[in-house]
Protein backbone atom coordinates (compact mmCIF):
# COMPACT_ATOMS: atom_id res chain seq x y z
CA UNK A 1 0.00 0.00 0.00
CA UNK A 2 2.90 2.34 0.61
CA UNK A 3 3.91 2.14 -3.03
CA UNK A 4 0.68 3.82 -4.08
CA UNK A 5 0.37 6.07 -1.01
CA UNK A 6 -1.32 9.45 -1.49
CA UNK A 7 0.90 11.82 -3.40
CA UNK A 8 2.65 14.54 -1.50
CA UNK A 9 1.31 18.07 -1.49
CA UNK A 10 4.14 19.07 -3.77
CA UNK A 11 3.13 16.54 -6.36
CA UNK A 12 -0.43 17.79 -6.20
CA UNK A 13 0.53 21.42 -6.63
CA UNK A 14 3.41 21.12 -9.09
CA UNK A 15 1.45 20.73 -12.37
CA UNK A 16 -0.93 23.67 -11.90
CA UNK A 17 1.86 25.82 -10.46
CA UNK A 18 4.13 25.03 -13.41
CA UNK A 19 1.60 26.65 -15.74
CA UNK A 20 0.01 29.13 -13.36
CA UNK A 21 3.09 30.88 -12.02
CA UNK A 22 4.66 31.81 -15.40
CA UNK A 23 1.28 33.07 -16.60
CA UNK A 24 0.91 35.09 -13.42
CA UNK A 25 4.39 36.56 -13.90
CA UNK A 26 3.42 37.53 -17.44
CA UNK A 27 0.19 39.14 -16.24
CA UNK A 28 2.17 41.12 -13.65
CA UNK A 29 4.73 42.40 -16.14
CA UNK A 30 2.48 43.09 -19.13
CA UNK A 31 1.01 46.49 -18.07
CA UNK A 32 4.55 47.90 -17.90
CA UNK A 33 4.89 47.14 -21.59
CA UNK A 34 1.50 47.54 -23.23
CA UNK A 35 0.16 50.97 -22.26
CA UNK A 36 -3.04 52.15 -20.61
CA UNK A 37 -5.55 51.16 -23.26
CA UNK A 38 -4.29 47.60 -23.53
CA UNK A 39 -4.03 47.34 -19.74
CA UNK A 40 -7.65 48.35 -19.42
CA UNK A 41 -8.59 45.80 -22.06
CA UNK A 42 -6.74 43.09 -20.19
CA UNK A 43 -8.50 44.10 -16.96
CA UNK A 44 -11.83 43.64 -18.74
CA UNK A 45 -10.55 40.25 -19.85
CA UNK A 46 -9.73 39.25 -16.25
CA UNK A 47 -13.22 40.29 -15.18
CA UNK A 48 -14.77 38.19 -17.94
CA UNK A 49 -12.53 35.30 -16.90
CA UNK A 50 -13.83 35.48 -13.33
CA UNK A 51 -17.42 35.55 -14.61
CA UNK A 52 -16.78 32.50 -16.78
CA UNK A 53 -14.95 30.73 -13.95
CA UNK A 54 -18.01 31.09 -11.74
CA UNK A 55 -20.32 30.03 -14.55
CA UNK A 56 -18.27 26.93 -15.30
CA UNK A 57 -18.65 25.49 -11.81
CA UNK A 58 -22.18 24.80 -12.99
CA UNK A 59 -21.57 23.87 -16.63
CA UNK A 60 -18.25 22.04 -16.47
CA UNK A 61 -18.36 20.57 -12.99
CA UNK A 62 -22.05 20.14 -12.18
CA UNK A 63 -23.39 19.57 -15.69
CA UNK A 64 -25.94 22.40 -15.54
CA UNK A 65 -26.10 24.92 -18.37
CA UNK A 66 -27.25 28.25 -16.98
CA UNK A 67 -28.49 30.63 -19.59
CA UNK A 68 -29.08 33.40 -17.11
CA UNK A 69 -25.74 34.21 -15.56
CA UNK A 70 -26.07 37.81 -16.68
CA UNK A 71 -28.42 38.07 -13.68
CA UNK A 72 -25.60 37.54 -11.21
CA UNK A 73 -23.08 39.68 -13.04
CA UNK A 74 -25.67 42.47 -13.23
CA UNK A 75 -26.62 41.89 -9.61
CA UNK A 76 -23.05 42.59 -8.54
CA UNK A 77 -22.83 45.61 -10.82
CA UNK A 78 -26.09 47.21 -9.66
CA UNK A 79 -25.36 46.52 -6.02
CA UNK A 80 -22.17 48.57 -6.35
CA UNK A 81 -24.04 51.31 -8.21
CA UNK A 82 -26.67 51.55 -5.47
CA UNK A 83 -24.03 51.57 -2.75
CA UNK A 84 -22.27 54.43 -4.53
CA UNK A 85 -25.38 56.50 -5.25
CA UNK A 86 -27.60 55.85 -2.25
CA UNK A 87 -25.13 55.28 0.55
CA UNK A 88 -22.25 57.38 -0.79
CA UNK A 89 -19.86 54.48 -0.42
CA UNK A 90 -16.74 54.78 -2.54
CA UNK A 91 -14.48 52.11 -1.12
CA UNK A 92 -13.84 49.11 -3.36
CA UNK A 93 -13.39 46.86 -0.32
CA UNK A 94 -16.81 47.84 1.00
CA UNK A 95 -18.31 47.17 -2.42
CA UNK A 96 -16.93 43.66 -2.26
CA UNK A 97 -17.70 43.05 1.41
CA UNK A 98 -21.32 44.14 1.01
CA UNK A 99 -21.78 42.95 -2.56
CA UNK A 100 -20.73 39.36 -1.90
CA UNK A 101 -23.28 38.49 0.81
CA UNK A 102 -26.03 40.27 -1.14
CA UNK A 103 -25.13 38.27 -4.25
CA UNK A 104 -24.88 35.05 -2.27
CA UNK A 105 -28.33 35.61 -0.82
CA UNK A 106 -29.96 36.32 -4.18
CA UNK A 107 -28.07 33.41 -5.81
CA UNK A 108 -29.30 31.14 -3.03
CA UNK A 109 -32.90 32.23 -3.53
CA UNK A 110 -32.92 32.01 -7.33
CA UNK A 111 -30.80 28.86 -7.25
CA UNK A 112 -33.25 27.18 -4.91
CA UNK A 113 -35.88 27.52 -7.62
CA UNK A 114 -33.64 26.58 -10.54
CA UNK A 115 -32.05 23.40 -9.16
CA UNK A 116 -35.46 21.75 -8.88
CA UNK A 117 -34.91 21.09 -12.57
CA UNK A 118 -32.08 19.95 -14.80
CA UNK A 119 -31.10 20.06 -18.47
CA UNK A 120 -33.14 22.34 -20.74
CA UNK A 121 -35.69 23.13 -18.01
CA UNK A 122 -32.93 24.39 -15.78
CA UNK A 123 -31.58 26.52 -18.62
CA UNK A 124 -34.96 28.04 -19.37
CA UNK A 125 -35.62 28.82 -15.70
CA UNK A 126 -32.29 30.59 -15.30
CA UNK A 127 -33.01 32.52 -18.49
CA UNK A 128 -36.50 33.48 -17.32
CA UNK A 129 -35.30 34.70 -13.93
CA UNK A 130 -32.56 36.79 -15.52
CA UNK A 131 -35.17 38.34 -17.81
CA UNK A 132 -37.20 39.28 -14.75
CA UNK A 133 -34.23 41.17 -13.30
CA UNK A 134 -33.56 42.78 -16.67
CA UNK A 135 -37.11 44.04 -17.05
CA UNK A 136 -37.09 45.31 -13.47
CA UNK A 137 -33.95 47.29 -14.25
CA UNK A 138 -35.69 48.78 -17.28
CA UNK A 139 -39.10 49.44 -15.70
CA UNK A 140 -38.03 50.79 -12.32
CA UNK A 141 -36.08 53.58 -13.99
CA UNK A 142 -36.44 55.94 -11.02
CA UNK A 143 -34.40 53.44 -9.03
CA UNK A 144 -32.14 51.99 -11.71
CA UNK A 145 -31.85 54.83 -14.19
CA UNK A 146 -33.57 52.72 -16.85
CA UNK A 147 -31.68 52.40 -20.13
CA UNK A 148 -29.32 55.22 -19.10
CA UNK A 149 -28.09 53.04 -16.28
CA UNK A 150 -26.18 54.30 -13.26
CA UNK A 151 -22.80 56.00 -13.15
CA UNK A 152 -20.21 54.82 -10.67
CA UNK A 153 -17.29 57.14 -9.89
CA UNK A 154 -13.80 55.72 -9.46
CA UNK A 155 -13.66 54.11 -6.02
CA UNK A 156 -10.80 54.30 -3.57
CA UNK A 157 -8.69 51.17 -3.22
CA UNK A 158 -7.15 49.47 -0.19
CA UNK A 159 -9.35 51.12 2.44
CA UNK A 160 -8.92 54.61 1.01
CA UNK A 161 -5.14 54.53 0.68
CA UNK A 162 -5.37 54.90 -3.08
CA UNK A 163 -7.48 57.77 -4.35
CA UNK A 164 -7.99 58.65 -8.01
CA UNK A 165 -10.00 61.85 -7.95
CA UNK A 166 -9.01 64.84 -10.03
CA UNK A 167 -7.42 65.19 -13.42
CA UNK A 168 -4.87 62.60 -14.53
CA UNK A 169 -6.60 60.13 -12.24
CA UNK A 170 -7.68 57.87 -15.07
CA UNK A 171 -4.35 56.30 -16.15
CA UNK A 172 -3.30 55.98 -12.50
CA UNK A 173 -6.60 54.32 -11.72
CA UNK A 174 -6.32 51.88 -14.61
CA UNK A 175 -2.82 50.91 -13.63
CA UNK A 176 -3.73 50.29 -9.99
CA UNK A 177 -7.11 48.81 -10.73
CA UNK A 178 -5.63 46.30 -13.13
CA UNK A 179 -3.54 44.89 -10.30
CA UNK A 180 -6.57 44.94 -8.05
CA UNK A 181 -8.49 42.88 -10.59
CA UNK A 182 -5.51 40.59 -10.99
CA UNK A 183 -5.35 40.00 -7.22
CA UNK A 184 -9.07 39.20 -7.03
CA UNK A 185 -8.70 37.02 -10.12
CA UNK A 186 -5.86 35.04 -8.51
CA UNK A 187 -7.81 34.60 -5.27
CA UNK A 188 -10.86 33.38 -7.21
CA UNK A 189 -8.73 30.97 -9.22
CA UNK A 190 -7.14 29.50 -6.10
CA UNK A 191 -10.42 29.24 -4.20
CA UNK A 192 -12.15 27.65 -7.17
CA UNK A 193 -9.27 25.27 -7.79
CA UNK A 194 -9.46 24.06 -4.22
CA UNK A 195 -13.25 23.71 -4.44
CA UNK A 196 -13.20 21.58 -7.58
CA UNK A 197 -10.48 19.37 -6.08
CA UNK A 198 -12.23 19.05 -2.73
CA UNK A 199 -14.58 16.21 -1.81
CA UNK A 200 -17.42 18.61 -2.58
CA UNK A 201 -16.03 19.30 -6.05
CA UNK A 202 -15.62 15.59 -6.74
CA UNK A 203 -19.20 15.03 -5.63
CA UNK A 204 -20.35 17.68 -8.11
CA UNK A 205 -18.51 15.92 -10.91
CA UNK A 206 -20.01 12.61 -9.84
CA UNK A 207 -23.48 14.15 -9.97
CA UNK A 208 -22.66 15.56 -13.40
CA UNK A 209 -21.55 12.15 -14.69
CA UNK A 210 -24.23 9.99 -13.14
CA UNK A 211 -26.94 11.47 -10.98
CA UNK A 212 -28.59 8.15 -10.11
CA UNK A 213 -25.39 6.54 -8.91
CA UNK A 214 -24.52 9.66 -6.94
CA UNK A 215 -27.86 9.38 -5.16
CA UNK A 216 -27.03 5.78 -4.32
CA UNK A 217 -23.80 6.84 -2.68
CA UNK A 218 -26.03 8.78 -0.30
CA UNK A 219 -25.29 12.19 -1.80
CA UNK A 220 -28.13 14.69 -1.53
CA UNK A 221 -27.98 15.67 -5.17
CA UNK A 222 -30.25 18.68 -5.10
CA UNK A 223 -28.48 20.22 -2.16
CA UNK A 224 -25.11 19.85 -3.88
CA UNK A 225 -26.49 21.50 -7.00
CA UNK A 226 -27.90 24.29 -4.90
CA UNK A 227 -24.62 25.02 -3.16
CA UNK A 228 -22.83 24.89 -6.53
CA UNK A 229 -25.35 27.38 -7.89
CA UNK A 230 -24.81 29.66 -4.91
CA UNK A 231 -21.04 29.66 -5.35
CA UNK A 232 -21.30 30.02 -9.11
CA UNK A 233 -23.68 32.97 -8.92
CA UNK A 234 -21.63 34.68 -6.24
CA UNK A 235 -18.35 34.39 -8.17
CA UNK A 236 -19.99 35.71 -11.34
CA UNK A 237 -21.49 38.53 -9.25
CA UNK A 238 -18.00 39.31 -7.97
CA UNK A 239 -16.98 39.76 -11.60
CA UNK A 240 -19.84 42.24 -11.95
CA UNK A 241 -18.66 44.08 -8.84
CA UNK A 242 -15.15 44.35 -10.33
CA UNK A 243 -16.49 45.39 -13.70
CA UNK A 244 -18.48 48.51 -12.70
CA UNK A 245 -15.61 50.74 -11.61
CA UNK A 246 -13.73 49.75 -14.74
CA UNK A 247 -16.68 50.64 -16.93
CA UNK A 248 -17.78 53.64 -14.84
CA UNK A 249 -21.38 52.84 -15.68
CA UNK A 250 -23.81 49.97 -15.45
CA UNK A 251 -26.76 49.57 -17.81
CA UNK A 252 -29.47 46.91 -18.13
CA UNK A 253 -27.42 45.40 -20.93
CA UNK A 254 -25.38 43.41 -18.39
CA UNK A 255 -28.64 41.83 -17.21
CA UNK A 256 -29.90 41.09 -20.70
CA UNK A 257 -29.80 37.55 -22.08
CA UNK A 258 -27.21 38.22 -24.84
CA UNK A 259 -24.70 38.86 -22.09
CA UNK A 260 -25.54 35.46 -20.57
CA UNK A 261 -24.79 34.14 -24.03
CA UNK A 262 -21.42 35.88 -23.99
CA UNK A 263 -20.51 34.16 -20.72
CA UNK A 264 -21.50 30.81 -22.22
CA UNK A 265 -19.57 31.64 -25.39
CA UNK A 266 -16.41 32.64 -23.54
CA UNK A 267 -16.48 29.43 -21.51
CA UNK A 268 -17.00 27.16 -24.51
CA UNK A 269 -14.37 29.09 -26.45
CA UNK A 270 -11.79 28.33 -23.76
CA UNK A 271 -13.12 24.85 -23.06
CA UNK A 272 -15.61 23.97 -20.35
CA UNK A 273 -14.07 20.58 -19.68
CA UNK A 274 -10.87 22.03 -18.25
CA UNK A 275 -10.28 24.19 -15.22
CA UNK A 276 -8.30 26.79 -17.17
CA UNK A 277 -10.76 26.85 -20.08
CA UNK A 278 -13.04 29.63 -18.86
CA UNK A 279 -10.02 31.69 -17.76
CA UNK A 280 -8.42 31.58 -21.20
CA UNK A 281 -11.84 31.86 -22.81
CA UNK A 282 -12.81 34.95 -20.83
CA UNK A 283 -9.67 36.83 -21.80
CA UNK A 284 -9.72 35.62 -25.42
CA UNK A 285 -13.41 36.41 -25.80
CA UNK A 286 -12.89 39.92 -24.56
CA UNK A 287 -10.25 40.55 -27.24
CA UNK A 288 -12.30 38.96 -29.99
CA UNK A 289 -15.37 40.96 -29.06
CA UNK A 290 -13.50 44.24 -28.75
CA UNK A 291 -11.88 43.91 -32.15
CA UNK A 292 -14.99 42.48 -33.76
CA UNK A 293 -17.06 45.43 -32.51
CA UNK A 294 -14.44 47.86 -33.76
CA UNK A 295 -14.10 46.29 -37.19
CA UNK A 296 -17.69 45.56 -38.19
CA UNK A 297 -21.20 46.50 -37.17
CA UNK A 298 -22.12 42.88 -37.78
CA UNK A 299 -19.93 41.81 -34.89
CA UNK A 300 -22.60 39.60 -33.34
CA UNK A 301 -22.82 37.70 -36.61
CA UNK A 302 -19.05 37.40 -36.68
CA UNK A 303 -19.03 36.05 -33.11
CA UNK A 304 -21.72 33.58 -34.04
CA UNK A 305 -19.67 32.31 -36.95
CA UNK A 306 -16.59 32.04 -34.75
CA UNK A 307 -18.55 30.00 -32.21
CA UNK A 308 -19.93 27.61 -34.83
CA UNK A 309 -16.49 27.08 -36.33
CA UNK A 310 -15.01 26.61 -32.85
CA UNK A 311 -17.54 24.01 -31.78
CA UNK A 312 -17.05 22.10 -35.04
CA UNK A 313 -13.25 22.18 -35.16
CA UNK A 314 -12.24 22.48 -31.49
CA UNK A 315 -15.07 20.98 -29.46
CA UNK A 316 -12.91 20.94 -26.35
CA UNK A 317 -12.06 24.63 -26.65
CA UNK A 318 -8.71 26.39 -26.80
CA UNK A 319 -7.34 24.80 -23.65
CA UNK A 320 -8.58 21.35 -24.59
CA UNK A 321 -6.98 21.60 -28.04
CA UNK A 322 -3.69 22.86 -26.64
CA UNK A 323 -3.45 20.12 -24.03
CA UNK A 324 -4.28 17.45 -26.61
CA UNK A 325 -1.56 18.83 -28.81
CA UNK A 326 0.92 18.93 -25.92
CA UNK A 327 0.11 15.33 -25.01
CA UNK A 328 0.67 14.28 -28.62
CA UNK A 329 4.04 16.02 -28.78
CA UNK A 330 5.10 14.47 -25.50
CA UNK A 331 4.18 11.01 -26.72
CA UNK A 332 6.09 11.59 -29.96
CA UNK A 333 9.17 12.66 -28.03
CA UNK A 334 8.95 9.65 -25.73
CA UNK A 335 8.52 7.27 -28.66
Amino acid sequence: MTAAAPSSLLRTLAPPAAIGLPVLALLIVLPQVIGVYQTQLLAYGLVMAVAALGFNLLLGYTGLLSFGHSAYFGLGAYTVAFLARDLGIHSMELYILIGLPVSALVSALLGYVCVRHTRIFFGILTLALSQVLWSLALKLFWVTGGTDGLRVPRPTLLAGTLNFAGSGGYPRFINSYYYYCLAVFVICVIVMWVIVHSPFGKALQAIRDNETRARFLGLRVRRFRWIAFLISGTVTALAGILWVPLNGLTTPEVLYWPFSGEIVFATILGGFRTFAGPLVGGIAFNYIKTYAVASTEYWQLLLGVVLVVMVMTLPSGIVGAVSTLAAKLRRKREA
Partner: protein
Amino acid sequence: MALLRTEHLQKQFGNTRACDDVNFVVNQGEFLSLVGSNGAGKTTLVNLISAHLQPDSGQILFEGRDITRASVTERIKAGIARSFQIVNLFDGLSVFDNVALSVFSRDGKATRMAALAERDDAVAGEALEVLEQFGLADKRDTMAAGLAQGERKLLDVAVAYALRPKLLFLDEPTSGVSTRDKAQIMDTVSAVVRAGKVTAVVIEHDMDVVFRYSDRIVMMHEGAMLADGTPDEIRANKDVANILLGAPLSD
Protein backbone atom coordinates in the same frame (compact mmCIF):
# COMPACT_ATOMS: atom_id res chain seq x y z
CA MET B 1 -31.48 -13.94 12.24
CA ALA B 2 -33.01 -12.27 9.24
CA LEU B 3 -31.13 -9.13 8.29
CA LEU B 4 -33.78 -8.14 5.79
CA ARG B 5 -37.33 -9.27 5.35
CA THR B 6 -40.04 -8.17 2.96
CA GLU B 7 -43.66 -8.86 3.74
CA HIS B 8 -46.27 -9.15 0.99
CA LEU B 9 -44.32 -6.76 -1.20
CA GLN B 10 -46.32 -5.72 -4.22
CA LYS B 11 -45.40 -3.68 -7.28
CA GLN B 12 -47.37 -3.44 -10.49
CA PHE B 13 -46.53 -1.67 -13.75
CA GLY B 14 -49.76 -1.35 -15.68
CA ASN B 15 -50.93 -4.95 -15.91
CA THR B 16 -47.50 -6.41 -15.18
CA ARG B 17 -47.05 -7.70 -11.67
CA ALA B 18 -43.32 -7.14 -11.31
CA CYS B 19 -43.42 -8.13 -7.63
CA ASP B 20 -46.35 -10.21 -6.50
CA ASP B 21 -46.72 -10.83 -2.77
CA VAL B 22 -42.99 -11.27 -2.27
CA ASN B 23 -41.81 -12.48 1.12
CA PHE B 24 -38.08 -12.31 0.70
CA VAL B 25 -35.61 -13.00 3.48
CA VAL B 26 -31.89 -12.34 3.63
CA ASN B 27 -29.98 -13.83 6.52
CA GLN B 28 -27.02 -12.26 8.23
CA GLY B 29 -23.71 -13.13 6.57
CA GLU B 30 -24.93 -15.17 3.64
CA PHE B 31 -24.07 -14.98 -0.04
CA LEU B 32 -27.43 -15.23 -1.72
CA SER B 33 -28.16 -15.52 -5.40
CA LEU B 34 -31.36 -14.18 -6.88
CA VAL B 35 -32.17 -15.94 -10.14
CA GLY B 36 -34.97 -16.10 -12.65
CA SER B 37 -35.54 -15.42 -16.33
CA ASN B 38 -35.59 -11.94 -17.79
CA GLY B 39 -38.60 -10.01 -16.57
CA ALA B 40 -39.00 -12.21 -13.48
CA GLY B 41 -38.93 -9.14 -11.23
CA LYS B 42 -35.44 -9.42 -9.72
CA THR B 43 -34.37 -5.87 -10.48
CA THR B 44 -37.74 -4.54 -9.37
CA LEU B 45 -37.33 -6.28 -6.02
CA VAL B 46 -33.91 -4.68 -5.55
CA ASN B 47 -35.33 -1.32 -6.64
CA LEU B 48 -38.02 -1.59 -3.97
CA ILE B 49 -35.59 -2.57 -1.24
CA SER B 50 -33.17 0.22 -2.14
CA ALA B 51 -35.92 2.87 -2.41
CA HIS B 52 -35.34 3.37 -6.11
CA LEU B 53 -39.04 2.51 -6.41
CA GLN B 54 -41.93 2.72 -3.95
CA PRO B 55 -43.99 -0.46 -3.41
CA ASP B 56 -47.74 -0.45 -4.00
CA SER B 57 -48.16 -2.30 -0.73
CA GLY B 58 -46.29 -4.49 1.70
CA GLN B 59 -43.45 -3.90 4.12
CA ILE B 60 -39.69 -3.91 4.16
CA LEU B 61 -37.97 -4.63 7.45
CA PHE B 62 -34.24 -4.16 7.90
CA GLU B 63 -32.72 -5.35 11.18
CA GLY B 64 -36.28 -5.54 12.44
CA ARG B 65 -36.98 -1.90 11.61
CA ASP B 66 -39.69 -0.89 9.14
CA ILE B 67 -37.92 1.03 6.38
CA THR B 68 -40.72 0.91 3.81
CA ARG B 69 -40.99 4.69 3.73
CA ALA B 70 -37.33 5.51 4.33
CA SER B 71 -35.54 7.59 1.69
CA VAL B 72 -32.60 6.43 -0.43
CA THR B 73 -30.17 8.29 1.79
CA GLU B 74 -31.69 6.85 4.97
CA ARG B 75 -31.44 3.33 3.65
CA ILE B 76 -27.82 3.83 2.65
CA LYS B 77 -27.11 5.20 6.12
CA ALA B 78 -28.83 2.14 7.56
CA GLY B 79 -26.39 -0.02 5.58
CA ILE B 80 -28.05 -1.03 2.32
CA ALA B 81 -25.99 -0.47 -0.82
CA ARG B 82 -26.50 -1.54 -4.40
CA SER B 83 -25.04 -1.57 -7.85
CA PHE B 84 -26.99 -1.36 -11.09
CA GLN B 85 -27.61 -3.80 -13.89
CA ILE B 86 -25.94 -1.46 -16.34
CA VAL B 87 -22.52 -0.19 -15.27
CA ASN B 88 -23.01 3.13 -13.49
CA LEU B 89 -19.72 4.90 -12.95
CA PHE B 90 -18.49 8.46 -12.78
CA ASP B 91 -16.72 8.39 -16.12
CA GLY B 92 -15.07 11.79 -15.80
CA LEU B 93 -13.43 10.88 -12.49
CA SER B 94 -10.43 8.67 -11.85
CA VAL B 95 -10.79 5.13 -10.59
CA PHE B 96 -9.49 6.34 -7.25
CA ASP B 97 -12.01 9.19 -7.05
CA ASN B 98 -14.87 6.86 -7.91
CA VAL B 99 -14.16 4.77 -4.85
CA ALA B 100 -12.97 7.61 -2.60
CA LEU B 101 -16.28 9.39 -3.10
CA SER B 102 -18.13 6.48 -1.50
CA VAL B 103 -15.88 6.75 1.53
CA PHE B 104 -16.31 10.53 1.73
CA SER B 105 -20.06 10.18 1.47
CA ARG B 106 -20.29 7.44 4.08
CA ASP B 107 -18.12 9.45 6.49
CA GLY B 108 -20.24 12.56 5.98
CA LYS B 109 -17.28 14.38 4.45
CA ALA B 110 -18.62 14.88 0.95
CA THR B 111 -19.66 18.48 1.58
CA ARG B 112 -16.17 19.56 2.57
CA MET B 113 -14.86 22.14 0.14
CA ALA B 114 -11.93 23.76 1.88
CA ALA B 115 -9.55 20.81 1.57
CA LEU B 116 -8.19 18.77 -1.31
CA ALA B 117 -9.88 15.39 -1.63
CA GLU B 118 -6.65 13.49 -2.18
CA ARG B 119 -5.08 15.01 0.93
CA ASP B 120 -7.43 13.13 3.23
CA ASP B 121 -5.11 10.31 4.24
CA ALA B 122 -7.72 8.28 6.09
CA VAL B 123 -10.06 8.26 3.11
CA ALA B 124 -7.28 7.73 0.59
CA GLY B 125 -5.95 4.81 2.58
CA GLU B 126 -9.31 3.16 2.74
CA ALA B 127 -10.09 3.80 -0.94
CA LEU B 128 -6.74 2.30 -1.95
CA GLU B 129 -7.34 -0.70 0.24
CA VAL B 130 -10.66 -1.33 -1.51
CA LEU B 131 -9.02 -0.87 -4.92
CA GLU B 132 -6.35 -3.34 -3.96
CA GLN B 133 -8.92 -5.90 -2.87
CA PHE B 134 -10.59 -5.57 -6.25
CA GLY B 135 -7.28 -5.69 -8.10
CA LEU B 136 -7.65 -2.17 -9.42
CA ALA B 137 -4.93 -0.40 -7.45
CA ASP B 138 -2.60 0.03 -10.40
CA LYS B 139 -5.42 1.72 -12.35
CA ARG B 140 -6.04 4.30 -9.66
CA ASP B 141 -5.23 7.29 -11.84
CA THR B 142 -7.03 6.03 -14.95
CA MET B 143 -10.30 7.72 -15.85
CA ALA B 144 -13.18 5.33 -15.22
CA ALA B 145 -14.17 5.75 -18.87
CA GLY B 146 -10.80 4.32 -19.92
CA LEU B 147 -11.20 0.93 -18.23
CA ALA B 148 -11.87 -2.37 -19.97
CA GLN B 149 -15.37 -3.78 -19.56
CA GLY B 150 -14.37 -6.38 -16.96
CA GLU B 151 -12.57 -3.73 -14.90
CA ARG B 152 -15.56 -1.45 -15.15
CA LYS B 153 -17.80 -4.17 -13.74
CA LEU B 154 -15.39 -4.68 -10.85
CA LEU B 155 -15.11 -0.95 -10.15
CA ASP B 156 -18.89 -0.75 -10.19
CA VAL B 157 -18.99 -3.29 -7.38
CA ALA B 158 -16.09 -1.62 -5.57
CA VAL B 159 -17.93 1.71 -5.50
CA ALA B 160 -20.88 0.09 -3.73
CA TYR B 161 -18.66 -2.00 -1.47
CA ALA B 162 -16.66 1.06 -0.38
CA LEU B 163 -19.78 2.31 1.39
CA ARG B 164 -19.13 -0.59 3.83
CA PRO B 165 -22.76 -1.68 3.78
CA LYS B 166 -24.23 -4.40 5.92
CA LEU B 167 -26.23 -5.60 2.95
CA LEU B 168 -24.97 -5.33 -0.62
CA PHE B 169 -27.12 -5.88 -3.71
CA LEU B 170 -25.31 -6.60 -6.95
CA ASP B 171 -27.50 -6.57 -10.05
CA GLU B 172 -25.83 -8.81 -12.64
CA PRO B 173 -22.20 -8.00 -11.79
CA THR B 174 -21.00 -10.29 -14.58
CA SER B 175 -23.37 -9.43 -17.41
CA GLY B 176 -21.79 -8.40 -20.69
CA VAL B 177 -18.34 -9.90 -20.10
CA SER B 178 -16.63 -13.00 -21.43
CA THR B 179 -16.93 -16.32 -19.60
CA ARG B 180 -13.33 -16.06 -18.43
CA ASP B 181 -13.85 -12.57 -17.00
CA LYS B 182 -17.05 -13.82 -15.38
CA ALA B 183 -15.22 -16.33 -13.23
CA GLN B 184 -12.55 -13.81 -12.34
CA ILE B 185 -15.10 -11.18 -11.35
CA MET B 186 -17.08 -13.61 -9.23
CA ASP B 187 -13.92 -14.96 -7.57
CA THR B 188 -12.90 -11.46 -6.62
CA VAL B 189 -16.33 -10.29 -5.55
CA SER B 190 -17.11 -13.32 -3.42
CA ALA B 191 -13.67 -13.25 -1.81
CA VAL B 192 -13.94 -9.56 -0.90
CA VAL B 193 -17.50 -9.81 0.31
CA ARG B 194 -16.76 -12.84 2.47
CA ALA B 195 -13.57 -11.33 3.87
CA GLY B 196 -15.46 -8.14 4.71
CA LYS B 197 -18.29 -10.15 6.29
CA VAL B 198 -20.77 -8.30 4.13
CA THR B 199 -24.10 -9.94 3.42
CA ALA B 200 -24.58 -10.04 -0.33
CA VAL B 201 -27.46 -10.60 -2.71
CA VAL B 202 -26.32 -11.19 -6.27
CA ILE B 203 -28.53 -11.33 -9.33
CA GLU B 204 -26.94 -13.76 -11.76
CA HIS B 205 -28.02 -15.69 -14.84
CA ASP B 206 -25.18 -18.19 -15.19
CA MET B 207 -26.34 -21.19 -13.14
CA ASP B 208 -22.85 -22.70 -12.96
CA VAL B 209 -21.67 -19.53 -11.29
CA VAL B 210 -24.74 -19.46 -9.06
CA PHE B 211 -24.28 -23.02 -7.81
CA ARG B 212 -20.58 -22.54 -7.21
CA TYR B 213 -20.67 -19.37 -5.10
CA SER B 214 -24.01 -19.24 -3.31
CA ASP B 215 -24.94 -20.20 0.22
CA ARG B 216 -28.57 -19.95 -0.76
CA ILE B 217 -30.53 -19.40 -3.95
CA VAL B 218 -33.88 -17.72 -4.46
CA MET B 219 -35.69 -18.05 -7.73
CA MET B 220 -38.31 -15.63 -8.95
CA HIS B 221 -40.80 -16.22 -11.72
CA GLU B 222 -43.33 -13.74 -13.10
CA GLY B 223 -43.02 -11.53 -10.05
CA ALA B 224 -43.42 -14.26 -7.47
CA MET B 225 -40.94 -16.26 -5.44
CA LEU B 226 -40.80 -19.73 -6.88
CA ALA B 227 -38.08 -21.52 -4.96
CA ASP B 228 -35.78 -20.90 -2.05
CA GLY B 229 -33.05 -23.23 -0.87
CA THR B 230 -29.44 -24.33 -0.80
CA PRO B 231 -27.71 -25.02 -4.11
CA ASP B 232 -28.37 -28.73 -3.67
CA GLU B 233 -32.05 -28.19 -2.93
CA ILE B 234 -32.41 -25.90 -5.93
CA ARG B 235 -30.62 -28.38 -8.16
CA ALA B 236 -33.17 -31.00 -7.15
CA ASN B 237 -36.16 -28.70 -7.53
CA LYS B 238 -38.52 -29.72 -10.40
CA ASP B 239 -40.07 -26.26 -10.89
CA VAL B 240 -36.67 -24.71 -11.21
CA ALA B 241 -35.54 -27.34 -13.69
CA ASN B 242 -38.66 -26.78 -15.78
CA ILE B 243 -38.07 -23.08 -15.98
CA LEU B 244 -34.40 -23.48 -16.71
CA LEU B 245 -35.23 -25.91 -19.52
CA GLY B 246 -38.41 -24.23 -20.73
CA ALA B 247 -37.08 -20.74 -20.93
CA PRO B 248 -33.34 -20.88 -21.50
CA LEU B 249 -31.70 -18.21 -19.41
CA SER B 250 -29.62 -15.70 -21.19
CA ASP B 251 -28.24 -12.26 -20.54
